């Protein structure tokens, strides 16, 4: 049996004397769409930042594709981090570069591909997310939904097996958001990718997630983990029920 794509063990994060969460343990299997959810301020994005090597946890460990990233030496950690792709909430596209140049950047830095090959591969990635016609545009010239798609294309540049998406639906209309959900499912199906998605968009969670992990600020940790539809229908936890039924706390 292969190692999980991502494993978090006993994770904790404290800021000064304030504990955001503690003892967070989970695994994400290869090919799974795993959603981290919860209310505002519960630590979803913090947990994501720990998973992608940007924030060392106060306690616990993160194994990405079988390697403990915070225990590894810097070169080994960099090699592991090159095997993941990240889409940030704002897209974080470089405003001075066209979409094509944004996608080509990791290929230029990390591969020996000749320029024509980089161009071809970058166009292919943009085509994968439905932006083949927008290659020459700047990020400022495209819509919010297109920015998210372009950010996914850039995250796919080095063909990582594991993708992290931070709030992919934030700020998008329901139709665009549903299109993005569809894209995630297609990429998982066609390319066998594993997704870890941070979101609190209920419709997206139910549409894409195989399993989800729910954080809670009051409990300072995980209050539920499993199939979101089963959690919605069967959970005894009032906070979980309130979240899935959109009830005021």
């Amino acid at each position, binding site marked *: 049996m292969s190692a999980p794509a991502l494993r978090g063990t006993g994770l904790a994060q404290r800021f000064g004397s304030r504990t955001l969460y503690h003892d967070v343990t989970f695994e994400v299997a290869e090919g799974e769409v795993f959603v981290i959810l919860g209310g505002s301020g519960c630590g979803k994005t913090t947990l994501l930042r720990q998973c992608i090597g940007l924030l060392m946890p106060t306690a616990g460990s993160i194994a990405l594709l079988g390697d403990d990233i915070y225990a590894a030496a810097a070169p080994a950690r960099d090699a592991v981090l090159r095997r993941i792709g990240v889409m940030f909430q704002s897209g974080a596209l470089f405003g001075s570069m066209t979409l094509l140049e944004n996608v080509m950047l990791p290929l230029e830095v990390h591969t020996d591909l000749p320029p024509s*090959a980089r161009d*071809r591969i970058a166009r292919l990635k943009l085509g994968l997310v439905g932006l083949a016609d927008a290659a020459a545009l700047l990020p400022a010239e495209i819509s919010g939904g297109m920015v998210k798609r372009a950010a996914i294309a850039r995250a796919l540049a080095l063909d990582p097996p594991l993708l992290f998406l931070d709030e992919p639906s934030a700020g998008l209309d329901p139709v665009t958001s549903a299109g993005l959900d569809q894209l995630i499912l297609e990429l998982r199906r066609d390319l066998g990718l594993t997704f870890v998605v941070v979101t609190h968009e209920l419709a997206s969670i139910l549409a894409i997630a195989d399993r989800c992990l729910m954080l809670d600020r009051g409990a300072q940790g995980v209050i539920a983990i499993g199939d979101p539809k089963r959690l919605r229908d069967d959970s005894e936890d009032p906070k979980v029920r309130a979240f899935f039924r959109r009830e005021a706390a």
Partner: protein
Amino acid sequence: MAEAATLAAAERDGARVLSVRGRLDVAAAGILWTEALRDAATEPARPLVIDLAGLEICDTAGAALLLAMEQARPGAAFEGARPHVAAVLERARAALVEPPPSPPAPPVPWHTVIGQGLAVASDGFAYLGEALVAVLRLPTRLRQFRIADLLRSADQAGVRAVPLVLLLGLLIGLILAFQSLIPMRRFGADVYVANLVAVSLLRELGPLLASVVLAGRSGSAFAAEIGSMKVNQEVDALATMGIDPMTMLVLPRMAAALLVMPALTVLLEAAGLVGMSVVLVGSGIPLVAIGNQIVAWVQPADFYGGLAKAVVFGAVVAAIGCRAGLSAGNGPRAVGQAATSAVVGGIVATIVLDGVFAVLFFRLGL
């Protein structure tokens, strides 16, 4: 994990067969790309089969290579692909859209260039008009004119620029005196270096250099600050709240620049005179003689004329900086462009205005 992909050529039933084996990921594609396309294009008269039976892993970069091989050799056929490889290949085929050939840029007719230039000039005049209107309406909009912003801008543009201005003035005084002293000494006119440098500083170099410092330090800062506000829609927010951006953002900065420029100019001139005196005293001219030369030669019109220029330069540099910010586009690059155009515009305007003042002073006999 499978080994990195390899390429092997063989023959079968008169066809050329290229077998791709192992793991064709982005790294392997980078190594194989040139060789694979060359191999695919070899012997164009014979059919080509690309055998993928030994290909265990293929990502989209690998699929891009396979499709490039297929394109390099029209009629080439894939065979033996495992289901997951075939799925990636099909997905990549659907995604890969050849870029349309970019049409040559049409030549821009001369009247369009002139029209664009006139449009820029008219925008500039419109902006000046808006600023003037904002000044005239200021008594009715005093609540929108924030004194705190004026003081902050004065601190930024004036107080914090003092060390730089003093250093610059001192160095300019030293250099001017030293460079003038050598030729003047040949004619035994050492002592007149004081006259030369003092008049140059007070009439010309003092306001000019202070204005360049203001454009470089504060004009760019005004443009970046207001440009960021524009990008973040803060300027739009002001407009929707019924607050005039010109009154709230531009006038305090213009007023601050207008107030600090005479002070910066005087400081720069004083530092320049000190620098000049250091050189002249070092070459044996008594300090009293230097002072006498300056007092006897420099007219009040030299000093006040320089100050008048400084006031105008300050207002113009600040106005250009604020305008660059207000007309910034979207994105971080736009903020950088705004800062650049603020500095360039400020310096060019300063020199052009200096020329205008030179003609004006000549006509007035000053």
